[in-house]
């Protein structure tokens, strides 16, 4: 059964029962009130009759008492009401001494009256009418009987019952209708929501619920939409991630298979054929070189994996010092190719990991070196810009075309394969840089034209931080600067070892 019907079938009967019980009680209460009032009034009337009768009798001289008829006595103070009432005077032996011609109903009050109870009443039903009979006895040993038709209050009661029943019925219908209407409206939203959920579950991830009410259902709907959006975003991210991963794997497989083909092929040639010593030398040389290529590839790959796993400590780095450090690192290799490097940096800071960011700029300068002819210049500018800091590396090298520019940071992409191979590149340098810059929430921009050199601008934003956080960073940065000087020596040693391994 639907929830709306459940609620309807539970609330409506309960409501009707309560309404009925309450109404009955009210009506009954008002009936008994009227009844009591009526009884009281009759008693009072009877008493007044009695008093008037006795006074009149007592006022007569003793000798006239028997001669004057009861009729006359009574008529002197009593006038019969029209319809439904009556009065009688009875003797002790139930002889009717007086009768006013009104209604007379049988009753048994007389027997119950005695010295201590001189008044009593009885409700008598006769021919669909209800009468109240009051009888009292006074000092005269005569019984006064007054009768009154009280059918009115009974019929009033049944009339009220009838009206009330109609009322309750109307209210029940109206209320039930309203409840159903409200429930259906609420449930319609619920159905919308449930339909949307089902659609979402079957893969229609663009499904959203359009419920504008501000109640709990509305909240639930907007929560659902929020969840759907969040999931969509996450799904897109995951898909992109998977795609990137696939592309990377494909490129990696290619990069791996190319040297492997040479190694296996030349080795196979050597073992299968009798070659001249020159040919054997050539084969061996190829095997060695391609083996080296695999080695360099594995190193870069390792570096990339490590960069991806690292938790980046966001420490303040004072750029002029940092760039000079980078310059010192690359100086030797630039000197070999007779290149001049110019470093100009405005005072400013960036946030991140010194070692990783260092490797970014070393890589960029190294690329510039590879692209430049001997005797050219390389510039490194640091510029403090509103809300951040940019570092530009520019060269006067070969430059690349627009199409190449778009693909330049893809893993394993090489603008000039044969030359890159000779320089010992694996095509991972810029991919690694991009990864590190992404880790630092930075961005970069390439400008280049064939033959006119290349400009790479890396922009770092300032993270939004609280005053306390900023103070903490400043403290750690100060400490960092001291430590970095110490660490520099060991880093040089490390790099030296790594170079040794590569050569």
């Amino acid at each position, binding site marked *: 059964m639907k929830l709306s019907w459940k609620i309807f079938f539970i609330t409506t009967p309960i409501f009707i029962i309560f309404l009925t019980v309450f109404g009955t009680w009210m009506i009954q209460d008002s009936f008994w009130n009227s009844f009591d009032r009526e009884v009281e009034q009759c008693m009072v009337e009877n008493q007044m009759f009695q008093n008037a009768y006795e006074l009149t009798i007592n006022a007569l001289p003793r000798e006239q008492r028997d001669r004057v008829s009861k009729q006359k006595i009574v008529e002197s103070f009593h006038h019969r009401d029209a319809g439904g009432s009556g009065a009688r005077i009875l003797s002790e032996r139930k002889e009717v001494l007086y009768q006013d011609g009104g209604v007379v109903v049988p009753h048994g009050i007389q027997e119950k009256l005695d010295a201590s109870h001189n008044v009593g009443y009885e409700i008598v039903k006769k021919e669909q009418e209800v009468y109240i009979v009051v009888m009292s006895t006074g000092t005269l040993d005569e019984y006064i009987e007054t009768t009154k038709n009280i059918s009115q209050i009974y019929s009033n009661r049944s009339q009220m019952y009838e009206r009330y029943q109609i009322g309750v019925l109307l209210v029940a219908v109206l209320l039930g209708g309203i409840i159903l209407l409200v429930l259906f409206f609420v449930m319609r939203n619920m159905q919308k929501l449930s339909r949307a959920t089902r659609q979402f579950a079957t893969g229609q991830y663009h499904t959203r619920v359009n419920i504008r009410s501000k109640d709990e259902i509305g909240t639930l709907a907007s929560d659902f939409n929020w969840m759907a959006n969040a999931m969509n975003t996450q799904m897109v991210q995951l898909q992109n991630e998977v795609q990137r991963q696939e592309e990377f794997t494909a490129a990696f497989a*290619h990069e791996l298979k190319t040297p*492997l*083909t040479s190694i*296996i092929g030349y080795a196979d040639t050597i073992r*299968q054929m009798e070659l001249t010593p020159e040919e054997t030398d050539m084969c061996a040389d*190829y095997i060695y070189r391609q083996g080296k290529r695999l080695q360099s590839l594995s190193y870069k790959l390792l570096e990339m994996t490590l960069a991806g796993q690292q938790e980046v400590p966001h420490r303040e780095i004072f750029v002029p010092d940092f760039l000079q450090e980078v310059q010192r690192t690359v100086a030797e290799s630039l000197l070999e190719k007779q290149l001049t490097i110019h470093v100009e940096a405005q005072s400013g800071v960036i946030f991140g990991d010194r070692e990783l960011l260092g490797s970014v700029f070393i890589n960029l300068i190294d690329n510039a070196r590879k692209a430049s002819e001997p005797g050219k210049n390389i510039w490194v500018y640091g510029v403090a810009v509103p809300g951040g800091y940019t570092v530009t590396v520019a060269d006067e090298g070969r430059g690349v075309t627009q199409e190449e520019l778009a693909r330049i940071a893809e893993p394993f992409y090489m603008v000039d*394969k*044969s030359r890159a191979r000779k320089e010992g590149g694996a095509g991972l340098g810029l991919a690694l840089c991009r990864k590190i810059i992404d880790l630092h929430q930075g961005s970069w921009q390439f400008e280049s034209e064939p033959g006119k050199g290349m400009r790479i601008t890396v922009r770092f934003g300032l993270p939004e931080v609280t005053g306390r956080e900023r103070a903490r960073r400043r403290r750690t940065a100060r400490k960092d600067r001291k430590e970095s000087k110490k660490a520099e020596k060991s880093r040089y040693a490390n790099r030296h070892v790594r170079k040794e391994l590569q050569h």
Partner: protein
Amino acid sequence: MIKILIVEDEEPIANLIRMNLVKAGYQCEIASDGEMAADIIAERTFDLMLLDIMLPKLNGYEVLEYAKEIGIPVIFLTAMGETQQKVKGLKLGAEDYIAKPFDIAELLARVETVLRRYKKTQRHLGFLDIEIDTDSHTVTQGGHPVDLTMKEYELLLLFVRNKNRALYRETIYENVWGGEYNGTGRTVDLHVQRLKKKLGLEDHIVAIYKVGYRLVI
């Protein structure tokens, strides 16, 4: 002489293929990018083209279009073992594909097969007094037909195509029987013995200790 164009941007691989094809008696030329390959085939004719897919300037599929127009059969070389790429190449009209890395024997066998399909090879292979008709699959020795089983015939063909080259048991097995060689079976040796006996090649097919056999002429 059969002329083969090798289109491969990786210099070591191009040289490797050339070295082995030249030794097998083919004439070779190398193109290091797609554009160069298209230019070369426009000028000169070739009997076969070995084509890499990932090439600078023009990619392998585009070069394949040119080659098809001129009517040069193409075997493409691919580092990507993805079925999709193989299917795409074959659909576009390539004769066969070779997945990198490859064995030299496999390379030669595939080259040979495609050339035979295009009737570019000699119909009759011969050495000593033995004649092999590759069309009718018949072998004659001194004019008399020799009855060989299918496997023996294929074995003989492999030896003839790899004269003076050491053939490893695994290479023989993989080329003649197909599938992975488990390294213990005597199948190869038994067939080689029978072939030697039938054709009287005891002095020419020599066993190489722990390796396999070589046809010495």
